[in-house]
């Protein structure tokens, strides 16, 4: 079967919260093997879009297709198992598991022994090598046995990416992966995203414009829940409505 050019498609996506429309009639097409950025001022509805695409929230209207298959009504976990995996705006690790165990929990899923309550967790040891490889890939080797709660913030974000990568997802949704990071961490995570995007698709919300300019193939600008502009950085950054929206809220 020929791979379709579009991996993720949303048509007429709308979300109302008690009369307030957070996302309004959004059409989105993400091309396979690209890095696609979703930008816009705070409160524009970017995180809500992510929640709709992964069904952490149910849309008021609209349909979503992943690899040509409708996923609008699928459970969030089922969508993740199809290969569309998201991260969260606030760092999401398992604080009381070690760094290695955080990654291993993701690796363990595909084996299908996760309901086996009568077996020793020693059966998970065979994932340790792969887990440590991933931990090393994000520069966390020195912290492998540390409970994730003790990691500094930037390292937690790196661990999140390693955990997501363990699932080998076809597509990753990253919600502000650079938020709260220092220059060093930003460089490291940006390089990491570029590497992992080689053979997968990334949709990312990001405020850091130099990162967006540097990484993304396509940018969709969202304001007040609606798509304002779309295209490569060079075009979008010159769009008058985009400049106004950004100047208007102090972003830039």
């Amino acid at each position, binding site marked *: 079967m020929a791979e379709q050019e579009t991996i993720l498609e949303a048509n007429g996506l709308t979300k109302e919260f008690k009369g307030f429309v957070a996302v309004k009639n959004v059409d989105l097409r993400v091309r396979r093997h690209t890095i696609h950025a979703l930008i816009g001022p705070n409160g524009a509805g970017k995180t809500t879009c992510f929640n709709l695409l992964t069904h952490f929230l149910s849309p008021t209207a609209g349909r979503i297709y992943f690899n040509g298959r409708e996923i609008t009504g699928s459970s969030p976990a089922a969508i*993740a198992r199809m290969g569309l995996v998201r991260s969260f705006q606030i760092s999401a690790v*398992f604080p009381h598991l070690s760094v290695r165990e955080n990654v291993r929990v993701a690796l363990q899923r595909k084996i299908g022994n*996760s309901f086996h*309550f009568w077996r020793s967790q020693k059966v998970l040891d065979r994932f340790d090598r792969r887990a440590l490889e991933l931990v090393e890939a994000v520069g966390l080797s020195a912290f492998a046995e540390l409970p994730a709660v003790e990691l500094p913030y930037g390292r937690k974000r790196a661990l999140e990416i390693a955990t997501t990568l363990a*699932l080998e997802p076809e597509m990753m949704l990253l919600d502000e992966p650079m938020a709260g990071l220092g220059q060093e961490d930003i460089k490291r995570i940006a390089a990491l995203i570029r590497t992992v995007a080689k053979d997968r698709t990334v949709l990312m919300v990001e405020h850091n414009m130099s990162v967006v300019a540097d990484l993304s193939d396509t940018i969709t600008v969202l304001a007040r829940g609606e798509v304002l502009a779309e295209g490569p950085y060079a075009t979008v950054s010159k769009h008058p409505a985009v400049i106004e929206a950004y100047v208007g809220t102090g972003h830039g």
Partner: protein
Amino acid sequence: MTAQRVIGVVLLAAALVAPWFAYPIFLMTALCFALFACAFNLLLGYVGLMSFGHAMFFGIAGYFFGHVVKAWGMAPELGILAGVAGAAALGAVTGALAIRRQGIYFAMITLAFAQMIYFFCIQAPFTGGEDGLQGIARRPLLGGLLPTKDDRVLYYVVLAIFLFGYGTIYRIIHSPFGQVLKAIRDNEQRAVSLGYEADRYKLLAFVLSAALAGLAGATKAMVLQFATLTDVSAAMSGEVVLMALVGGLGTIIGPVVGAFIIITMQNYLAAAGEFVLVIQGAIFVVIVMAFRKGLVGELTDWWKSRRSAG
């Protein structure tokens, strides 16, 4: 050796010689409550689910045991099996309806179900109503090979049941399933985003916890030879929370220690009558305020800091 190991070995040695130093009936009762508290802690400590109705599983299993052994005249093993199966089935039904709720709503729904079961037990024909089921005969075990009239003999049977239940809980916590449970407890949304249907894992944990609470309840009915409304009451649901919190949630052994402290207190302060409850309440307040992690939790921390200092 970790602090928990040391405590475990000491307790096991003590358990083996205990019936020569204390009343076997008292010890057996305490072991049943300890197992009950461990089953409860499997949910609260390792899944983060606070059930306010766990007595329904403990108590209903006692009735199942009593009915199978007394009315049907069957072997105690079958009675215990019936108790475990009945509690698990009740856990599956109530769990399926409660598990989607979070936090306080989950607690309230379990409490409501427990109240329903309590009133059901007052009315139902096979529970003996207000009187409960009295005088359940102590039949021999293993097809007649092991008489259980002697309390000391029965004590070792109960100890074996307790260790089986305790070992089961240890295994659940340290299994591939247990890893997912801890992940869900730590960050449910993230676990879901990795592809785990969190509700199904929580439901299985709930059913396992109910079954183990049932094992404790059925065993208690075998020991004391009666099944009563007390064991399905809201007070009993509260008591198991107390035992788990006093001992400490984050450890497997904590609830055992908590159960023994509470049962010992009730036993030796029995002369004080209703005043036991006041004393119990006061101790609870002190422990919760002074030892946030429960007695075993604090002891473990103290041991760790002492080792890293020395």
